Structure formats: structure tokens, C-alpha cells
């Protein structure tokens, strides 16, 4: 008995010693990547044990373990696929393990296709502009299109205010909200009065401005696609009011756990302003508009999101528009616009994502020009479903279909007693597309896509292939190339007369280099765009279907440069855009191929923003330059042979951030054309020569030399912004 208890005691005492006395084996090796470069700081360890270490600067490692026999050694490091190896730790000698880690495909570090695309967003790495940048660009007065106009590839066309991209007319650029087409993204306007975008930049958390070569998901745009992504669930319940020199607005957002509802209402009236500031326009009724919107967001699950947006806006204006004949036309416009956009997206399984949506726009314009009445109603419904599937780690597929129904109708009355002439069309456009993104490595990606469309109105189909490649040359630089075919229906003004036309067509070739390093971005892009089947008509017989054809053509080529630096100047941020454009086309009523009236050879924008923390104020300045644009002087030979003077504009804005009784408040002031440069957009000529045989002209310019704006925006609800 005694003997036994002694042995127990001895045993008991030995247990900890046994643990301590376990033989330690040394494991050494090295962790390299597939290129043979050392992976520093990789975690190397025996699985399910504490034994392990981190690799050193040369990727090598040494550690000891008490484990023996068959074991698994694992190596993992950020940005690499983890790897495991089986080893056999025997009593003799040390074990050696060598790892070759494969780089993990990651959206954060992988190459992205940048040819043609400018991304503005709040989250992604490739972001060049943030949503706030768009809202605070001087000269744009918080208009998305005004801000995009400071990017290369966009063209300043003062009398239109719309986007003209790379030698393309404004109708060649389409706007998409959450993937769905917006048929009329601009406010209605009359000739020579610039339009603004309908949507506030604050609605969107992401903007991609594509000046060419874009994805097969988008069609019906020959030149450019502006992709706007709406905000998700707002952070909190809050109420805002705005008091502006041109109107007032109010909004309220209610936030519940998974749902939010926001209501906005606004009213603007330019009458007090145009009464104070000298105008070049003889207003009979200064522009007035009222509108409102309802925005619903609902998180249906951890991954599902339902978004619904509806807005209504009504606007009116009237003016007496001078003619080169010396008379004046009484012009009046009355617009009503209803827009609704509902989307739903969710992860179906880990590898399948569904995006669906439906949008509807009703737009009605009543235009009066002296005795004439023109009423136009445009209704568009678009439904779309897209599936995204990760077929393999490096291979992503995206495919979907969309259906667009459009009813367009115009009634024209020469005078109140004349018979009304109706011209209209109904269109059903079906489209389907498929696209694959194939990451050959973290440094090389290829995107191949194809889009097929069928128009019931034209009774014609088209098939548009798209192809892009991007190659990362080093950590900060990359080269992208894109090619694509783009088709678009002729504009409504032609289709309403003749529906036997065919698609207009453009082919894009783009080569891009981009370098992003340390808050600095440099981009250079060269492109060539070929136009075919542009719509032409005989201006003598505009109401006859036979005077329309698709015999037009053209080209555009050029270089776009962009430089942004958020580093060199403390609290300062600037970007410079320059575009060189060479374009000619023969379309519409052009008698020959010519440089179109909207195209200037050189476009330059310099945008500067500076925040002064002590004053809590941001100052912004934008200088824009555009070389003279062509116009047709009937007193001279040829067509579009003359050039306007160069365009210069210096705009400033100031935002002062403060709080009024604890409520976050922004005071905003802006002024365009501070230097008062004489801005000439073109000339209008008399239709007939006078007795001396000359056509007389009048200058087309902005509605006023400068536009001044002041606004006070107050937010109730104690927003918290982390600095």
C-alpha cells in the first residue's frame, strides 16, 4: 500500500515535469509568393496548437514545437490564399517547410477597368471624386452635370447646360439611376436657356461618368453613360430646411431599424432675383418651379435592399425672345414631370446576386411660341433584371434583360384656330446582355460582353460587342484599353415623322493610363470614335418622312488629361482637366461634314478647393476655358466656317459651416463669371438677307452676365460628423 502511494506521489510530482521535459523540435522554412518574393510577417504555425511564428524580412522562419508525428503546418498572410502542408516530425533532424503563397483576388487591390470611366464614390479605392466633390464644385451650383463638366471629355456648351461628351451631341449621353434609364434627366428648357439636372447630388453615394467603352449592361447611348447610385439607409432621423435666394425647401427623414422614409418639398421662383440683377433676357414670367419627392428604403434581410423613389415637379417660365430680324417672339413653357424608380437587390446564394428594378417617367411640356402651340407627352417605362454570378474565384458573370416601353406624342397647332397635327410613336425595345469579368491575376483583368437589342418600332435588331482589358503595371499604375459598339435609336423628333430609320451607331477605341499614389491621380486617355448611320434630313421638307435617312457619319478623336492633387497643399485640393478634340460630322441638316457647333478644340478646367479650419469655411474656385466654337455665317462660303471668341469663366463659392442653436448649418454663397468675361455661345442669323444682301446676326450668350446664389441650409436632428 505504502509502495503504491509512494509511486502515486512520485507520478504526481512527475506530471508537470513530463510536460516541461517534452522534447522540442525545430521547424524552419521560408514563405515566398508565386513570384519568389519574400512574404513578410506571414503567420506560420502547427494547426490546432499554439506553436508558430511570423516570417521575417526574408520570409524565413524558425520555431520549435513539442508535437511529433504527422502534423499540418499552415501559413497565412493578408492578401494571400492560406496554405497548408503536411509534415512528419520525427525524432531525428529538423523539419523544413517551404511555402509559395498565391495572391488572393481582392476587389480592393485588384486591377480595375478604368478606360473611359471616371468613378466618384465614397467607399471604393478607385474613386477619383467623392459625392461631396460634386456638390461643392464652384461654377456647378450643386448641379451634377455642371460638376461633371469639369472632367476631361466633357464639353462646355453654355446655352444648353447638358453633357456633350467627346464630340458627341447631348442626346448621345444617357443617365441611369441604379441601373435604370432616366429618359429626361434635365429640367425642361427653351432654346438658348441652359438646363439643369433634375436630381440633387446629395441623393447619390456613387457616380460613374463613362466617356466611352462602357459595359454591355448599358445601351441606347452612343457616347457616354452617367451611372448614378442612390444612397442606402440614411443614418438617422432628421429634418432640414433651406432658404435660398431663389426659393425655399424642406425635408424630413424618419429612420427606423430597417426602414427609412424621407419626404422633400421645394419651391423656387427666380422673380425676385431677376428683378434685382440685370438680365439679358426679357422675362415675362421668371422661371418658377415646385416639386416634391418620397424616398423609401427598406432592408429586407441582412443582404436585401428595397429602394423606392418618386418625385413630381412642375415648372413654368415665359419670356420675350429677341430674333435677329429685330422682332421678338413670346415664348412660354409649362412642364410637368413625374418620375418613379423602384429597385430591389439581394444575394440569392453566396455566389448569386439579383438586381431588379422598374422605372417610370411621365413628362409633359406645353410650349407656346407666339401663336403656335406645341404639346409634347413622353412616357417611358423600363423594367430590368440582372443576375451576377461568381462562377469561379476569378470569373464573374453578369447577365440580364430589360424591356423599355415608350409612348411619345406631340400635338402641333399653328394658331388657336388651326387644326392640331399629331405626330407620335410607340416603341418597345427589348434588350439582353451578358458580360464576363475574368481576373487572370490580380494584375490583369479582361471583360468581354455582348448586348443584343430589338426595336419593335424600327423592326430591327442590333448586336453590340464590348471588350475591355486592364493591366496593372505596378502598385500604383495601370493601363486599360476598351473597344465597343454602341447603338441608339434616332431621336424622338425624327422618329415621330419616320419610323423606318435604323439605329445610329458608334464604335469606340480607348487607351488609358492611370496612376494613383498618395492622394495624387494622373490620367491620360486617347480615343477614336467612329460614327455611322447618323440621322439626316432635308431642312426644306422637315415634315415629310422621305426627307429623313441614316446617311450621316462622323468621327471624333482626341486626348483627355486629368491631374488631381490632394496632398501638396495643406487643406487644399485641386484638379486640372484638359481635352483636345478633333471631330467632324455630317448629321441632321448639315450640308456637308463639318465641326459641329457644340465642339471646341481645347477645353480646360481648373478646380480648386480650400478648407480653412479656423474659419470653418471652404472656398472653391473653378476656372474654365474653351476655345472658340464653330458657327455658320451665311454671309460666307462654306458651312460652320466661323469661330466664336474663346470662352472664359471664373466662378467662386464659399461654404461656411456653423451651427444655429445646436443645429448644423451651412451658409453657401456662389458666383459665376466673376471677371465678367463676355461669353458668346454662337450667333443667330436672319433667315433672309436684307436689301444689301447681308444676313444680320445677333449674339447668343448667357441669360445674365453672372449668376449669384446664396443659400442657408439648416439640419435639425444633431447630425454627428466625425472629423
Amino acid at each position, binding site marked *: 500500500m505504502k509502495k503504491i502511494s509512494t509511486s502515486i506521489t512520485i507520478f504526481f510530482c512527475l506530471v508537470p515535469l513530463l510536460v516541461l521535459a517534452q522534447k522540442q523540435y525545430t521547424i524552419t522554412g521560408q514563405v515566398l509568393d508565386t513570384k519568389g518574393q519574400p512574404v513578410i*510577417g506571414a503567420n506560420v504555425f502547427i494547426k490546432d496548437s499554439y506553436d508558430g511564428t511570423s516570417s521575417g524580412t526574408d520570409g524565413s522562419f524558425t520555431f520549435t514545437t513539442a508535437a511529433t508525428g504527422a502534423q499540418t503546418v499552415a501559413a497565412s498572410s493578408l492578401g494571400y490564399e492560406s496554405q497548408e502542408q503536411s509534415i512528419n516530425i520525427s525524432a531525428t533532424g529538423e523539419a523544413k517547410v517551404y511555402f509559395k503563397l498565391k495572391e488572393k483576388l481582392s476587389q*480592393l487591390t485588384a486591377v480595375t477597368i478604368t478606360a473611359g470611366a471616371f468613378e466618384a464614390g465614397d467607399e471604393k479605392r478607385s474613386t477619383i471624386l467623392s459625392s461631396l466633390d460634386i456638390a461643392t464644385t464652384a461654377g456647378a451650383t450643386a448641379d451634377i452635370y455642371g460638376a461633371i463638366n469639369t472632367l476631361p471629355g466633357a464639353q462646355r456648351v453654355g446655352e444648353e447646360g447638358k453633357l456633350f461628351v467627346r464630340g458627341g451631341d447631348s442626346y448621345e449621353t444617357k443617365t441611369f439611376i441604379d441601373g435604370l434609364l432616366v429618359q429626361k434627366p434635365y429640367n425642361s428648357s427653351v432654346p438658348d436657356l441652359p438646363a439643369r439636372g433634375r436630381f440633387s447630388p446629395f441623393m447619390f453615394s456613387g457616380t460613374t461618368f463613362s466617356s466611352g467603352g462602357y459595359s454591355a449592361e448599358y445601351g441606347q447611348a452612343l457616347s457616354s453613360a452617367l451611372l448614378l447610385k442612390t444612397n442606402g439607409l440614411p443614418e438617422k432621423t432628421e429634418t432640414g430646411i433651406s432658404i435660398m435666394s431663389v426659393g425655399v425647401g424642406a425635408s424630413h427623414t424618419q429612420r427606423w431599424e430597417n426602414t427609412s422614409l424621407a419626404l422633400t418639398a421645394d419651391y423656387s421662383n427666380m422673380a425676385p432675383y431677376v428683378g434685382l440683377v440685370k438680365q439679358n433676357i426679357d422675362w415675362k414670367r421668371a422661371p418658377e418651379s415646385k416639386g416634391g419627392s418620397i424616398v423609401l428604403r427598406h432592408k429586407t434581410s441582412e443582404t436585401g435592399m428595397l429602394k423606392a423613389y418618386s418625385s413630381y415637379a412642375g415648372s413654368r417660365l415665359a419670356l420675350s425672345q429677341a430674333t435677329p430680324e429685330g422682332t421678338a417672339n413670346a415664348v412660354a413653357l409649362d412642364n410637368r414631370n413625374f418620375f418613379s424608380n423602384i429597385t430591389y437587390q439581394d444575394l440569392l446564394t453566396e455566389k448569386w446576386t439579383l438586381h431588379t428594378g422598374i422605372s417610370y417617367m411621365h413628362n409633359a411640356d406645353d410650349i407656346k411660341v407666339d401663336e403656335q402651340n406645341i404639346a409634347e407627352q413622353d412616357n417611358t417605362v423600363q423594367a430590368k433584371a440582372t443576375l451576377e454570378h461568381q462562377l469561379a474565384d476569378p470569373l464573374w458573370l453578369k447577365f440580364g434583360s430589360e424591356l423599355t416601353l415608350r409612348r411619345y406624342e406631340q400635338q402641333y397647332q399653328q394658331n388657336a384656330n388651326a387644326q392640331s397635327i399629331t405626330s407620335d410613336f410607340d416603341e418597345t425595345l427589348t434588350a439582353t446582355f451578358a458580360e464576363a469579368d475574368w481576373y487572370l491575376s490580380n494584375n490583369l483583368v479582361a471583360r468581354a460582353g455582348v448586348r443584343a437589342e430589338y426595336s419593335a418600332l424600327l423592326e430591327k435588331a442590333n448586336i453590340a460587342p464590348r471588350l475591355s482589358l486592364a493591366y496593372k503595371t505596378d502598385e500604383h499604375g495601370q493601363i486599360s484599353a476598351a473597344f465597343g459598339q454602341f447603338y441608339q435609336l434616332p431621336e424622338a423628333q425624327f422618329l415621330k415623322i419616320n419610323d423606318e430609320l435604323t439605329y445610329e451607331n458608334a464604335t469606340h477605341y480607348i487607351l488609358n493610363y492611370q496612376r494613383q499614389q498618395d492622394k495624387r491621380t494622373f490620367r491620360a486617355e486617347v480615343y477614336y470614335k467612329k460614327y455611322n448611320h447618323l440621322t439626316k434630313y432635308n431642312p426644306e421638307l422637315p415634315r415629310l418622312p422621305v426627307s429623313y435617312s441614316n446617311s450621316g457619319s462622323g468621327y471624333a478623336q482626341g486626348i483627355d488629361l486629368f491631374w488631381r492633387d490632394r496632398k501638396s497643399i495643406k487643406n487644399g485640393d485641386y484638379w486640372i482637366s484638359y481635352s483636345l478634340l478633333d471631330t467632324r460630322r455630317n448629321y441632321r441638316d448639315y450640308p456637308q461634314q463639318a465641326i459641329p457647333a457644340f465642339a471646341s478644340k481645347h477645353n480646360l478646367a481648373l478646380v480648386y478647393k480650400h478648407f480653412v479650419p479656423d474659419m470653418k469655411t471652404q472656398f472653391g474656385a473653378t476656372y474654365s476655358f474653351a476655345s472658340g466654337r464653330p458657327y455658320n455665317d451665311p454671309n460666307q462660303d462654306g458651312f460652320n466656317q466661323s469661330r466664336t471668341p474663346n470662352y472664359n469663366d471664373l466662378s467662386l463659392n464659399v461654404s461656411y459651416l456653423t451651427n444655429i442653436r*445646436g443645429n448644423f448649418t451651412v451658409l453657401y454663397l456662389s458666383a459665376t463669371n466673376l471677371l465678367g468675361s463676355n461669353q458668346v455661345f454662337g450667333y443667330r442669323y436672319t433667315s433672309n438677307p436684307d436689301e444689301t444682301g447681308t444676313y444680320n446676326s445677333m449674339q447668343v450668350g448667357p441669360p445674365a452676365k453672372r449668376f449669384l446664389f446664396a443659400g442657408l441650409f439648416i439640419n435639425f436632428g444633431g447630425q454627428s460628423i466625425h472629423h
Partner: protein
Amino acid sequence: MKKHILFFAAVILFVSSSFAQNNNYETTMAKNLELMRSGKTAEELQQAANGFERIATAEQKEWLPLYYATLTYINISAKEKDESKKDQYLDKGQEHLNKALKLVPKESELHVLQGYVHLARINVSPIARGMKYSGMATKAFEKAKTLNPENPRVYFMLANTKYNTPKMFGGGPEAAKPYLDQAKEKFDVFKPASAIAPNWGKSQTEAMLANYN
């Protein structure tokens, strides 16, 4: 008798070896904590993070290794200059935190850490992310407060959020002061559950409070 003794021996053997194992857990954790606290460079901190990851894979039921792995990745992210890498480290931290939250969803400390990850995201792009992530962080801290109102780190982190929020959005040193006072009060009576349980923030709170005089 012999049978009894054998059984007895077996019990002792079992108990002592599991004690050794458990002891090993605490000592290894403590060793790594030391590495984390003394780590000055990203490389040194990466070693600590790797250590916590190794323990976490071996001890699938423990949340503390995951907790500290996350905390270490927040610290690495703060040292990193490259914006996209900052996010990658935080993604890694979030991964560990998610695992920990699956083990003990009602642990107040984990929700404090969740808020901390959100705050760290702001540093990548303060203007673009400030509003979104400070809101998310505050939510996480409030959740941590409901789970354990006595957790001093809740108040310390809330104070930090307030402190770094511009005055015009209702933040600033003055707005942070009451939270710091509360944090100090709670820290003074706080007893960590074990030698390796979360026990940071007191000296930082005192340092911040010292600035007010």
C-alpha cells in the same frame, strides 16, 4: 484497491494536464498581450496579431484571442499610411470580431470593439465617411452600454467619438467632458474578470482629462 488507485491516478493525470493546457492558454495570451502592448512598428504588431490568431485557431471556444486579434489589427491599421491597406487590416479585424460575436453575442466588450472598428474606418477618408461611420460607431457603443452599463470603455469610446466630432455637429472637447468624467468614475471601480480580460483605456482617459486643466 488497485483499480481505485489507477482511477485516481488517471483523474490526477487528466486534471493536471488540462491545468497545464489551461495554464498554457493564459501564459501564451499574456505573452502575446505583452507583445501587443510593447509593439511599436506594424511588423511587431503583426507578430502579436499572428500570435492571437494561432491561439484562436487552437482554442475555438475562446473569444479573447479573437478580441485581441481585432484590437491589434485596429492598431496596425492606424500605423499604415496606404488608404486601401488600412481598410484591408480593418477587414481582417472585422473577420475575427464576427467570429467572436458568434461565440458571445452579448459581450459588451465586443460591441465596444465593433464601434472602435467603425471609428477606425473614418481615418481612411474623414470627409466622405465621417457621418456614416460615426453614426454606426455610436450605435455599437450604445448597444455595449445596454449590455453592461458598468463597462468603462463604453464611455471612453463615446468620449473619443464626441471629442473628434467637429463642434458644429455637436462635438468637441466640451461635449466629450461628461463622458470622460463618467469613464473615469467607472474605471476607478472596474475589476477585470481575469488577468487577460480587456483592461485598457484608463490611462488614456486620465491623459485626456489632464488636458482640461
